[in-house]
């Protein structure tokens, strides 16, 4: 009887039922489409950020260079330049100096990685050394010692290098890389003079697997060529951390046991703020950067799309959903008001109030489910439309963006030096979570309308309801 009565009643007020269901469908469809678009934008952002930041990394820890540290212009050659100026290097001497230097960041002590690894909610850590390999070649000119410019007689070549913790390559600079030739590092290569080189650098320098590359005066065998997705500004050469520490210098000092970047993976995304606070306590001078800091530096149409999806889209769908819920509730209450005599009769026949409420709620929830199903279809159509029509979005990361108020560090430096524009194809993936959300919203819409309608039906006194008949 419940279903027969429900079906007949919905058929009787078919237009109203369709109207309510459509209202809910539009609201739910919008929520699905906007959520899918928002997810698509997030995926796009993640793709951009991962190329810069490393897949799996939640937080990076760096430290600003100490005052008076080696300047980028000298690249650690201060001693040689002074010797030349003092006339200790003879005119005509051929110079070929290759140094691996830390120019951008302060160094973090040997125990820093362990300190961070020991913090609560930290899942894993990996230390890294972001360095520059600089080679100066030329012949000492015939000029008076202590005067004149010598720069024009020398050629300087440099490339960016990353010392990688080979025991945990799932974090850090190589985590987002895909090997296009050869292989990556294994933990047995912790001290090996092996190198992985970036595919663009390999192409520019015509390098292939098996060739050698000079790093700080030591030859490293190329064992693999890697491509970092979506562009970004990846290092040119990756070598194991131990040789990087051994060869590298920072203001003339050894980098033995030192790192200048710590990549941190946190157990849960919700723990990131707490982990940042704990790191700040453990390493007071450190600069701590998470993906949000980095994301705030992303501009371009991807950022606009993100803003559109997160602000306008979200509020628009919430507003439409609230309007749909209100409409459903009001129309259900109006329908109950028109059925006062009917419900009064049922009460006179001995129907308990709960049975009448169940009938009203059953009708509302059925409309909600129909609206939800239509909403899912609408949402899918909306997401499909975005997939079909959405143009490629661009994300610009770098000097055009304002630096974040806090954080930045290695990445800030990386970003502010070289602005990058990365193209991302916007997709709108409809996930099972979104479908579950839609079903829950549909049920909620039906329930809310049913509760209002049921509440009105429950308040009916049978005598008063039947009095309307007279």
């Amino acid at each position, binding site marked *: *009887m419940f279903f*027969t*009565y429900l079906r*007949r*009643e919905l*058929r*009787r007020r078919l237009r109203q039922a369709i109207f309510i269901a459509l209202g809910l469908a539009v609201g739910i469809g919008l929520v699905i489409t906007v959520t899918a678009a928002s997810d698509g934008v997030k995926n796009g952002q993640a793709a951009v950020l991962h190329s810069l930041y490393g897949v799996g990394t939640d937080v990076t820890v760096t430290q600003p260079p100490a005052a008076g540290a080696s300047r980028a212009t000298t690249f650690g050659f201060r001693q040689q330049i002074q010797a030349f100026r003092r006339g200790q290097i003879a005119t005509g001497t051929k110079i070929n100096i290759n140094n691996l230097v830390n120019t951008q960041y302060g160094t973090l002590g040997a125990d820093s990685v362990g300190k961070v690894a020991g913090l609560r909610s930290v899942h894993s850590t990996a230390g890294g050394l972001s360095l520059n390999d600089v080679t100066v070649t030329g012949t000492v000119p015939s000029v008076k010692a202590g005067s004149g410019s010598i720069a024009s007689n020398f050629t300087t070549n440099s490339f960016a290098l990353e010392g990688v913790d080979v025991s945990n390559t799932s974090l850090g600079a190589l985590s987002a890389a895909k090997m296009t030739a050869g292989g990556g590092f294994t933990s047995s290569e912790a001290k090996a003079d092996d190198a992985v080189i970036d595919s663009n650098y390999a192409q520019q320098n015509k390098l292939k697997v098996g060739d050698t590359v000079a790093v700080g005066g030591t030859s490293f065998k190329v064992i693999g060529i890697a491509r970092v997705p979506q562009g970004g500004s990846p290092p040119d050469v990756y070598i194991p951390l131990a040789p990087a520490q051994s060869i590298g210098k920072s203001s003339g000092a050894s980098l033995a046991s030192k790192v200048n970047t710590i990549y941190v993976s946190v157990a849960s995304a919700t723990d990131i703020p707490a982990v940042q606070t704990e790191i700040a306590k453990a390493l007071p001078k450190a600069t701590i950067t998470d993906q949000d800091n980095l994301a705030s530096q992303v501009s371009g149409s991807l950022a606009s799309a993100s803003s559109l999806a997160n602000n306008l889209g979200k509020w628009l769908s919430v507003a439409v959903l609230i309007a749909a819920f209100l409409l459903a509730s009001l129309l259900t209450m109006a329908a109950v008001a028109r059925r006062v*005599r*009917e419900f*009064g*009769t*049922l*009460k*006179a*026949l*001995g*129907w*308990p*109030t709960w*049975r009448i409420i169940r009938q009203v709620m059953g009708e509302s929830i059925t409309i909600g489910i129909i609206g939800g199903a239509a909403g899912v279809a609408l949402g899918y159509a909306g997401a499909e439309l975005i997939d079909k029509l959405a143009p490629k979005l661009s994300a610009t990361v770098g000097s055009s963006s304002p630096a974040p108020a806090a954080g930045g560090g290695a990445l800030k430096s990386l970003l502010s030096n070289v602005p990058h524009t990365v193209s991302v194809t916007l997709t709108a993936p409809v996930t099972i979570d979104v479908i579950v959300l839609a079903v829950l919203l549909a049920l909620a819409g039906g329930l809310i309308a049913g509760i209002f309608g049921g509440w009105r039906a429950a308040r009916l*006194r*049978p*005598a008063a309801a*039947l*009095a309307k*008949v*007279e």
Partner: protein
Amino acid sequence: MYKLSGVVKNYKKGRGTVHALQGVDLVIEDAEWLAIQGPTGHGKSTLLQILGGLDRPSAGTVELDGVNLSRMRESRLTRVRARSIGFIFQTFNLIPTLNAAENVEVALVPLRVSGAARKARAEQALRSVGLGDRLRHLPSELSGGQQQRVAIARALVKEPSVLLADEPTGNLDEGTRDEIIDLLEDLWVGRGLTMVLVTHDSTVAGRAQRHGQMNDGRLTVVPVTGQARQPGSRPALG
């Protein structure tokens, strides 16, 4: 058996208070047919609602088979209505989306009768009121008399001990009125029902055993012919 003692019903209307019933004392024996007449707004329907447990008196007691309905919890009162009291209304009050058989089934729903048994009993009840060929018809496809027959079948399908009818022939033409009253009388006789019928129609009231007159919320009860009529002794309709 009904026993009403000092029943008062007041209710607010705007700023004033309406005294719908002013100290009604009444005893209705089992299997008795009482007709209540009176001008509109003098408390007939209010009395019927109080008898049916649809409303509670402001004062006084309403006993049905020794149980005080006026103090009964709503859930129990609902069960009493579901099991023991059948209602018939002037405007039939059928559910427009359900067919004749389903409308009758509705009365068995609160009694938790199984679907098949409900269907069988509903069809039997409709056949007993002469609507065996109209089981699947919607109320809108039935005449006024047929709709009232469906309402009677709905009231009686649960085999109640009491039938309360509020102007059951008020919306019917004379010929149909007579058919309905004949039917009600047959059912009263056949089932030993206690029947209370509110009507404006003296002809209809004349068929009852006793006749009550409501005036300004006060009830005066007299036998129709000066002597209580026995079930089966049917006077002619005027």
